[in-house]
């Protein structure tokens, strides 16, 4: 099929792959990118929020052309019981700025645009091509890939594995482990279409302003998980995800959980009358710092979700993916311009550069959080949300009960459920994991 040898082969045309391909091609490298979907984005799923700073570092003028939905001016956190939500809302007019900080996006559209930019820099993109195997030489160095297209293997000096959380190549070559059930969340999502004016009225916004709602509580039935509602221009992305290990233990149906989330009295009016146009599912890396595989070796680097680079606490993933792809591209270019070989030693530059970036620093900060969420799931996602809802009701409902008795009942409900030591322990554990 392809006889020529490339400087680099990039597996995947998601955020990490596109960033790596763009970075290398714009520095004059000969790059081949493989994508198994019909077009870039056709296999990719995200909530999705785009963080401008990390795109700017690759394509500074992206706001002029990229398909963006709404810039976010408001963030709502909802702690949910079966009938209530207790919310914290943060809205700031300062987010109506010339250069927006965060945008909602639709991945299939954004990825197609991003990939188009790479192709303009000279990347050769092969879609509808599934990479099935990495080729290693007698010394274990990755020297190319085999695809499901007719023709022989394709060779390159270095391979960038940006194959996503569920990529097969790296695992099959034993370069990274298959994710464990406790290291990935399964998220399901629907696209609900509504006229722009209706969305703007329901969410109290105008023009291109947008709102994010993140919800945790009884909606996940005691499993470690979250729901989300994002406003796009003429649609609302609504979804919910929980750890796969919790799903397996509880024998729960994600589709049914999503239906229940949609029917929650706080949620239903926001999506009423909408037309659903897509139902998607995807895994999200949740293992954090301790789940990151070895990021480089002889002739290869691993980027993005494939490397578990996802900040579960801040719900950031695509920006870590994009940044790791860019840094991999820069490191590879540096090695190439020195005319050095792509040995593991030389490619360790990628890890060094990534360690110095926010990507690894942030993941390190929260390294104990996945374990806490895993072991404390039923307290954090079931007991406390119910207690908080009860406390709020005690505070708000006027029924002639003296306030002092209401307060006593609130405090004793917390003590009864978790015990004084349990409460203290939970607070300490959480503070430690956050530190």
């Amino acid at each position: 099929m392809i006889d020529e040898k490339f400087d680099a082969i990039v597996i995947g045309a998601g955020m990490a792959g596109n960033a790596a391909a763009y970075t290398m091609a714009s520095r004059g490298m000969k790059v081949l990118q493989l994508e198994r979907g019909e077009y870039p984005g056709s296999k990719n799923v995200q909530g999705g929020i785009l963080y401008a700073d990390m795109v700017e570092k690759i394509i500074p003028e992206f706001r002029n052309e990229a398909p963006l939905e709404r810039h976010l001016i408001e963030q709502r956190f909802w702690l949910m019981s079966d009938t209530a939500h207790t919310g914290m809302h943060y809205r700031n007019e300062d987010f109506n700025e010339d250069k927006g900080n965060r945008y909602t996006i639709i991945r299939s559209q954004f990825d197609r645009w991003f990939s188009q930019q790479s192709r303009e820099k000279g990347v050769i993109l092969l879609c509808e091509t599934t990479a099935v195997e990495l080729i290693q030489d007698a010394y274990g160095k990755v020297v190319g890939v085999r695809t499901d297209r007719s023709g022989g293997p394709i060779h390159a000096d270095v391979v960038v594995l940006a194959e996503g959380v569920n990529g097969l190549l790296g695992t099959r070559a034993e370069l990274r482990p298959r994710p464990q059930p406790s290291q990935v969340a399964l998220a399901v999502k629907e696209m609900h279409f509504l006229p722009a004016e209706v969305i703007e009225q329901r969410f109290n916004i105008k023009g291109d302003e947008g709102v994010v709602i993140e919800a945790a509580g009884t909606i996940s039935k005691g499993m470690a998980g979250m729901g989300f509602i994002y406003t796009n221009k003429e649609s609302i992305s609504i979804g919910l995800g929980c750890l796969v290990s919790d799903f397996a233990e509880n024998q729960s149906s994600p589709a049914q959980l999503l239906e229940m989330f949609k029917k929650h009295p706080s949620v239903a009016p926001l999506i009423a009358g909408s037309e659903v146009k897509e139902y998607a599912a995807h895994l999200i890396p949740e293992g954090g710092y301790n789940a990151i595989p070895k990021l480089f070796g002889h002739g290869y680097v691993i980027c993005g979700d494939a490397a578990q680079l996802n900040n579960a606490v801040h719900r950031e993933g695509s920006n870590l993916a994009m940044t790791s792809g860019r840094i991999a591209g820069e490191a590879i270019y540096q090695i190439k311009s020195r005319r050095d070989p792509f040995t593991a030693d030389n490619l360790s530059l990628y890890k060094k550069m990534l360690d110095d970036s926010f990507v690894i620093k942030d993941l390190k900060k929260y390294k104990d959080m996945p374990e806490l969420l895993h072991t404390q799931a039923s307290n954090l996602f079931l007991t406390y949300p119910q207690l908080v809802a009860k406390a709020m009701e005690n505070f708000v409902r006027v029924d002639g009960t003296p306030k002092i008795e209401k307060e006593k009942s609130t405090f004793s409900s917390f003590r009864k459920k978790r015990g004084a030591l349990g409460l203290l322990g939970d607070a300490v554990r959480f503070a430690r994991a956050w530190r």
Partner: protein
Amino acid sequence: MGIEAQFQKVEEKLYQNRYLVDAGQPHIKIAPHEKPSKNLLAMTHLCPAGCYTEAESGQVEIAADGCLECGTCRVLCEETGEISWNYPRGGYGILFKFG
């Protein structure tokens, strides 16, 4: 009203999606078994596309046409050899319009 009737069925959700099915080339296969493991049986609830069903004889079966390629079953059942998991051939499978 049973839970099934109360909620939209998974199959109805899948009608909204775009697929190019590679007829006769299922990308996920279940190994012959007498009794499914706990994880394999859990897939009859867990699979977001409802691909896994339990036959009357107790074995778990798969019809992967509606697969969303999330990989949940791979994470839970591939290691033990109960299922084999590949991506569909290039261009086939789920084609997300929005993602």
